């Protein structure tokens, strides 16, 4: 287990590894899905953007989970995976984010939100 979450030492750079392995898995048929696009250097500009920095109601795309395996697993099980779209919808009275993902509401701690590397959706992707 756990070759993926070495991000603790080197935040947000594991995306490339994942995309590599995904291509191996799925072959050519489904590369049009957002998560299978190759990541170019330009798209890494906002490498340090975290879910915690995103204003309410702005939908973003998850890039990677910057946390150890055992913490990431419950998130993965609930569909919080690189490539998915997350939208913070409100904040709890204690200031923790509540996000909408795949039609479900999920409450996170802000510490967790700070470990989720995200990127803004370009207007082009927004249309599609």
């Amino acid at each position, binding site marked *: 287990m756990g070759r*993926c979450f070495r991000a603790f030492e080197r935040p947000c750079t594991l995306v490339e590894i994942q995309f590599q392995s995904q291509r191996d*898995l799925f072959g050519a048929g489904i590369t049009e899905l957002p998560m299978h696009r190759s990541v170019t250097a330009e798209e890494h500009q906002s490498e340090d953007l975290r879910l915690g920095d995103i204003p309410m109601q702005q939908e973003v795309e998850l890039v990677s989970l910057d946390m150890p395996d055992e913490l990431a*697993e419950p998130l993965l*099980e*609930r*569909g919080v*995976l690189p490539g998915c779209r997350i939208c913070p919808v409100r904040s709890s009275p204690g*200031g923790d984010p509540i996000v909408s993902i795949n039609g479900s509401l999920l409450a996170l*701690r802000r510490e967790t939100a700070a470990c989720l590397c995200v990127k803004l959706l370009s207007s082009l992707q927004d249309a599609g």
Partner: protein
Amino acid sequence: MVEQDLVASGGPATKDAPAQTPIVALVGPPNSGKTTLFNQLTGLRQKVANYPGVTVEKHVGHVSLTEGRHLSLVDLPGVHGFSARTLDERVTRDVLEGKVEGMQSPDALILIVDVTRLENQLMLVEPVLEMGLPTLLVLNMADELDARGGSVDDQALAERLGVDIVRTSARTGAGIDDVRAYLRGVADGGTAGEHVERELSNVPASTALPVIDAFAARRTLVRNIVQDADFVPPGPSQLTERLDSLFLHRLWGPLIFFGVVLLVFQSIFTWAVPLMDGIDWMVATSGDWVSSSLPDTWYRSLIVDGVWAGVGSVIIFLPQILVLFLFLGILEDSGYMARAAVIADRAMYRVGLQGRAFLPLLSGYACAVPAILAARTIDDERDRLATIFVTPFMTCSARLPVYALLIAAFIPNRPVLGPFMSQRAAVLLGLYGLGIVAAVFTAFLLKRTLLKAEPTSFLMELPPYRIPSPRTLMLRLLDRSKIFLRRAGRIIFAVAIVLWTLTQFPRTEAGAPDIEQSALGTIGHVIEPVIEPLGLDWRVGIGIVTSLAAREVIVGTLGTIYGVETADEEAVALQEILRRDLEPGAAIGLLIFFAFALQCMSTVAVMRRETAGWKWPLVQFTYMLLLGYVGAFIAFRIF
């Protein structure tokens, strides 16, 4: 192929032995309406037990179908996947694979999902279908999907997944007949036990993949499936949005939260009281009746003083537990409990616990036994241990009779805050506060010593708000009371008999000895030197020993020892004798001792089961005893 699989998996033998009742397992993610469907199919004909060796509850129900056909339905715990990270996931997997001792593997599955969140919920579909069992996919809450403008092509979904599909609304009962029709087919042996080969994707078995790849692969698969079935996600639920903007409001949210907590308290301590008085009266009256209808022999004393009084002291708490669980059930099924956990999480996190600990800690005010069981929903093992370790500090209702007796005897009824609060009420409130302080301190300590860990994550899915089904609530209450009576009853029963026996020996010419000369009295004298620094004598010593069974037992024991006829906590006589016999400092010390010490064998027994060993209950018992002893000692010196 089919035959080979049957043999290889040691699987269902329905075809060889048609006499055996077919088993169907019910699987689904949490909050999918699984339990409601289970109750609708089985009604009262269900049994609760534990899976061998683990603390996960096993619900098995009996489903009667037309023409005398019937089968067993197993309600598995709600899971998101089979990563075996939690006990629930491990058990679910083991049941599906037929690896649970003494249980045949299921002949078919019902996979239930909340269709309004189809994409999310289908994450479970691939690992379940991989099991290769005939499966019915139940799309629950279909009425809500339609109402909110969503849609899905059932036919396409069924073909894509290779399963049968039924739409239901578990709340209104629509579609239940279709589920029954499917079960009928299973009972007839049509598809039962057949291994189904499904070509979901060209993805290799997920277990062989590194963790993130497995999940990514599954998600892509689910996305494709959902797209193929023309799934249109429903619009956001207006009701849920509106209620959330109130319940999770920066100001109103916490206020409503405290209001709900107060309401639960109020219900435990005022609404349940008439019921408890009623039960108390029934136990006393029936005890008198049994007493008068039996000859005056040794076994009359055993039955009336030992068994009747002992078991009666447990049954009396049933109303409180029922009222508590009725409230908790409503809060949980309506979706509010998840929000309450989110609100509580920040404060809980600061002391080393998490939001999910809120429910067990609140339950702890009625009784620690169901509260410790309720902590099973905490998925982080360290958080769960810390929670059940501090739960007995919550002022459970068994402490109330002890507090009531000692406060009435030693605290004058003077006002402290004008007419609003008497000194007695203030002391009672102080004892509640003491429990909370001890719990917070202990949790803090644990998370820095024995349960030291990296900060954990807290994730809470917020289900849409729904109106709870009365039927499900009632069945759950029935369930809880059965479990409570069985678990606590057994221990109290045994202890009552042991205690009674100790008062009967050594025999004298007149029969039973004086209590001071009895084996129990001897135990009291042995203990005396230990509790002397607390200003207590052998009589209270016996009370402390007997109240190991359950805290409130000390009231009855002291009554017996002092030879008071009616050993009720209201009894003025006992209060006067205590006032004469105990110094005020010793009495306050005794109150503090009972606030801290783990004087409850039922809790110890449940702790042993829940932690699968003696280590935790022993650490907990010793720690709480020491805290109680030191607290009582200090109080005795000060006052």
